[in-house]
């Protein structure tokens, strides 16, 4: 028993850098949003207008629910009897991650991809495409499922919807500028609130544009960090960082080889995701919600080394 390492620390340790950067991004978003709300209040945007906008945005987030996303992507819920092997491995991983086993959904496209949705683990669904199952071998599929499970465990859908809430408010104000300006103007004319006027309206509009732009970058950054976290989770759950690395490589090759007809089919679905309120495991760099393949593989290799050192 001398060969045994007398340590109860898990082999994967902690990624302090990643947690720190994630925390910093969330802090910056929070600070940005706090400043935004302050500007809105200082510019004396009528409370009624403000509440209407908040409710509308909140409603749109709720209505853009999981069921609609699933339906729009053409996914079909799989019964366990249909794909017993897939369900078995998912059950094992869920038990390991201490999550209820999510439902599995099937998307009939050659594009290899997968995504997880659900604001809480109880309602979570993992969708996989036919291309993913055809191209990847069992251990690689397992790694992809573990990546999606980590998104569920980290509540990424909820975190990113929350993170993008005020960004959507800002976007709404920019787009519905005339409506907002009208209510502020009306308020001023009636002598309520007593302030504002043209300058205030422009201030609100400018602030919204700035918040929209900065938050866009911050949310994308946060999204990429959460992809790294999910990759890490996959390595931890499967115990093999290499599985996900080869899976990601195959997915990238698969995406490149996918006929544009099939890509278009998914594009229409991507258009549905206005904000990354839905986690989508894709190596399509155009979204930039995901880090590059090279970076992800570098991290996985680092994790593999860390494992060997233990």
């Amino acid at each position, binding site marked *: *028993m001398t*060969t*045994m*390492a*007398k*340590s*109860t*620390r*898990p*082999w*994967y340790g*902690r*990624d302090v850098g*990643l*947690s720190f950067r*994630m*925390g910093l991004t*969330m802090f910056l978003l929070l600070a940005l949003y706090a400043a935004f709300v302050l500007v809105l209040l200082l510019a004396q945007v009528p409370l009624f207008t403000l509440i209407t906008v908040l409710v509308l945005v909140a409603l749109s987030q709720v209505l853009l629910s999981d069921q609609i996303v699933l339906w729009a992507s053409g996914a079909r819920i799989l019964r*366990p*009897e249909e794909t*017993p092997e897939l369900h*078995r*491995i998912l*059950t*094992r991983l*869920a*038990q*390991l*991650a*201490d999550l*209820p*086993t999510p439902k599995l959904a099937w998307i009939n496209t050659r594009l290899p991809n997968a995504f997880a949705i659900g604001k809480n683990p*109880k309602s979570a669904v993992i969708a996989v495409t036919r291309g993913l199952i055809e191209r990847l071998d*069992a*251990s690689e599929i*397992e790694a992809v499922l573990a990546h999606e499970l*980590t998104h569920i*465990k*980290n*509540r*990424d859908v909820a*975190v990113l919807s929350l993170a993008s809430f005020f960004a959507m408010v800002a976007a709404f104000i920019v787009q519905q500028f005339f409506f907002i300006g009208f209510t502020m103007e009306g308020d001023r004319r009636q002598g309520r609130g007593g302030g504002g006027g043209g300058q205030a309206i422009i201030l609100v509009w400018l602030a919204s544009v700035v918040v929209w732009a900065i938050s866009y970058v911050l949310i994308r950054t946060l999204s990429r*960090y*959460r992809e*790294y*976290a*999910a990759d*890490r*989770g996959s390595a*931890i*759950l*499967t*115990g*093999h*960082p*290499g599985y996900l690395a080869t899976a990601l490589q195959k997915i990238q090759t698969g995406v490149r080889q996918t006929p544009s007809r099939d890509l278009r089919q998914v594009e229409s679905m991507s258009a549905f995701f206005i904000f990354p309120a839905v986690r989508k495991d894709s190596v399509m760099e155009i979204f930039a919600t995901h880090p590059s393949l090279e970076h992800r593989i570098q991290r996985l290799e680092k994790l*593999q080394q860390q*494992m*060997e050192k*233990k």
Partner: protein
Amino acid sequence: MGLFDALFGRTKLSPGKTDALFALSTAALDIETRLDSAYGGKAAIVLRAVDNSAYDAISKDLHDLLNLGGRDFRASVSMHQDNMGFQWIILEGPDLEDAINGLHMTADLIKQAGFADSLLAAMFRFGDWYLIYSYRRATFYPFVPTGRSSRQESREFRIRQTLANALPMEKDPERWYPLWDPPI
């Protein structure tokens, strides 16, 4: 893993909780009398095999530990790797008490080596059904397979009801993860 961990995307697996396994010792009588099921002589730990050389060393240590303890320990040990990358450490012997102790020692060894989070479940055979202990949640749940992918849920609920006072039974049926085709 708390809210804070989720917020910062820190994947942490809850360390395997091993101690509640001993509750089975006292519940054994209930299982025998109230469920009319005798211990089937087979039990196993299911764990995730990790890609690591230190992990390989554990399996050697395990063999030493369980074979050394052999004098007052009437169980034979075997390993089984299933097609999903999980390792089964199987104890075969007539006595449930030996199986509980053996599995606990095994789990302890794995824990000390820093692989507590790869402990998935302990499984005990009772006649035609199984009792599964979940290391994540420190709870037990019944598993009555009737085929390769079907289970008799009504009977599982009855077993849960019967053992609810004797064992920490898992309340949420969604967490009654099936372990299909067990090699025990």
